C-alpha cells in the first residue's frame, strides 16, 4: 500500500519545525515514530500534504529527574522507557505498559509523545498518564504551555494541541514513599489494541489508609477515561476487599465501551471490573 503524495520536511531545530507548522497550517502533520501515522496514510485514512519529521531535532529525547518530577522527552522511544532504571525506580507501571505496546520492533520506533498526541483512546499511555497525573508540555509559536492531563484529551483523535503546537515533554510528579503502580490490558494477541485496559497508582500511609489514587482506563470510552468515582472509593480508606469491590463496580458502571469484535459492551464492563481489582492489588503489593 502506498500513501498519497506528500512533501517531506526534516527540520533540525524546534524553532524551524514550529515555523514550518505555521507555514503549512492544517495541511501538515508531525512525523514522530510514525507507527500510527504511516499505517493510516498507507490506508489513506490520513493524507497530509506535508510531513514534518521531528526525529532530527535534538533535545526531545530524555528521561530525567528534576525538582520532584520525572521529565520524559516526547521523542523518547518505547524501548527506552521499557528499560529506564529511573522509571523503574519510581514507576513500575512503565515496565508493564511498554511490554504490552505492540511488539519489540514497533517499540524501537514508537515514541511516548506520539502515543499521546495521536489522541487515540485505544493507546495505552493515556490511561497511565491519567493514573500518574502527568502534565503535557506543548511548544508552539506563542511559547511553551503546560496542559494538565485531565484537560488534554478532547474527543475521538482530538487533543488540546493546537495547530502549530508540538508536544515536547511529559512531566510526571514523583509520588511519595508508600506508592505503587500497575497496568494491564486484556488483548487478544500480541500487538492488539486493548479489549480493556487499566492503570492504577496508589499511595498508602503508615496506617494502611489510601491517601492518593489515580486510575485510568484504556479503550472503554471515546476518550481515555479517568475512573474518578473509583479513585474516591479508595481514598481515605484502608484497601480492603470491600473498597476494591466498590472501586471495580464504579468503573464498570462509569465506562462507555462499544460492542465490537473484541467483545460486547457487557463483557468489556465486566473486564474493567476484574482489571481494577487485579491492578489495585498489584499496585498495593508493589508498595515498598
Amino acid at each position, binding site marked *: 500500500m502506498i500513501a498519497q503524495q506528500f512533501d517531506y520536511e*526534516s527540520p533540525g531545530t524546534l524553532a524551524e519545525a514550529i515555523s514550518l507548522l505555521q507555514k503549512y497550517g492544517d495541511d501538515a502533520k508531525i512525523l514522530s515514530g*510514525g507507527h500510527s501515522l504511516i*499505517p493510516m496514510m498507507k490506508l489513506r485514512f490520513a493524507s497530509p500534504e506535508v*510531513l514534518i519529521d521531528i526525529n532530527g531535532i535534538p533535545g526531545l529525547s530524555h528521561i530525567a529527574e528534576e525538582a520532584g518530577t520525572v521529565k520524559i522527552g516526547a521523542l523518547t522511544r518505547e524501548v527506552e522507557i521499557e528499560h529506564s532504571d529511573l522509571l523503574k525506580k519510581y514507576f513500575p507501571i512503565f515496565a508493564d505498559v511498554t*511490554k504490552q505496546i505492540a*511488539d*519489540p*520492533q*514497533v517499540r524501537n*520506533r514508537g515514541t511516548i509523545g506520539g502515543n499521546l498526541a495521536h489522541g487515540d483512546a485505544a493507546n495505552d499511555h493515556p490511561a497511565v498518564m491519567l493514573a500518574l497525573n502527568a502534565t503535557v508540555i506543548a511548544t508552539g509559536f506563542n511559547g511553551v504551555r503546560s496542559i494538565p492531563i485531565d484537560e488534554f484529551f478532547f474527543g475521538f483523535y482530538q487533543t488540546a494541541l493546537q495547530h502549530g503546537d508540538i508536544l515536547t515533554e511529559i512531566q510526571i510528579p514523583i509520588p511519595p514513599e508508600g506508592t505503587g503502580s500497575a497496568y494491564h490490558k486484556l488483548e487478544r494477541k500480541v500487538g492488539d489494541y486493548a479489549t480493556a485496559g487499566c492503570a492504577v497508582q496508589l499511595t498508602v500511609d503508615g496506617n494502611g489508609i489510601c491517601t492518593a489514587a489515580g486510575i485510568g482506563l484504556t479503550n472503554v470510552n471515546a476518550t481515555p477515561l479517568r475512573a474518578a468515582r473509583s479513585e474516591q472509593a479508595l481514598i481515605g480508606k484502608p484497601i480492603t476487599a470491600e473498597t476494591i469491590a466498590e472501586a471495580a463496580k464504579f468503573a464498570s458502571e462509569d465506562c462507555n465501551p462499544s460492542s465490537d469484535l473484541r467483545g460486547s459492551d457487557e463483557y468489556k464492563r465486566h473486564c474493567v471490573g476484574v482489571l481494577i481489582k487485579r491492578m489495585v492489588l498489584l499496585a498495593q503489593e508493589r508498595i515498598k
Partner: protein
Amino acid sequence: MLKQIKLTVNGQEHSLEVEPRLLLVHLIRENLTLTGTHIGCDTSSCGACTILMDGKSVKSCTILAVQANGKSIQTIEGLAPEGGPLHPLQDGFKENHGLQCGFCTPGMIMRSVELLENNKNPTEDDIRWGISGNLCRCTGYNNIVKSIEWAAAKMRGEETPSTEPQFV
C-alpha cells in the same frame, strides 16, 4: 517532489532520489534489488520486512525511505559474506529446521540479531517475547525458538545443543 538521500546498506553507500512516500522496504527490494527482505502483511504486524537500522530491528514497511537518510541499514544479505561461513543464526535455523516455507525467516533472523546483541543468554520466555513481532504460519515456533537458543550457545562459544527433533 523528489528528495535526495544517502544511506549505507550492508556496508555499501548509496545515493538516490526518491519520492517521500516511497517505503524503505520498497527501496530495499526494488531500487536496490535486495529481495531477501520480504513484504508479508504490509501493516507492521508480521515482521517479515524486519531489517536493522543503525543496529535496531525495525519494520521497513512502516518507515519512509527518506527517514533512512544518513542511516546504516543491514539486511539478511549483509549478515554473512558472499560464499563465506553463515552467521550463527542462519546456521541455527538451518540445523534446527527453524523454517518450513521460509517466508518469515529473514525477518526472524534480523530480529534475533538484535535480541542476541542485547541478551547473550536468553531464556525461552525472553526469546518468545523477543520474537513476538514476527509471525510464522508454518513451524508453530518451537523450532524457531530452538534455532535461536542454538545460535546463542554458538555465539557464546559453548557446545551447541542437540539438533535431534523434540516431540511436544
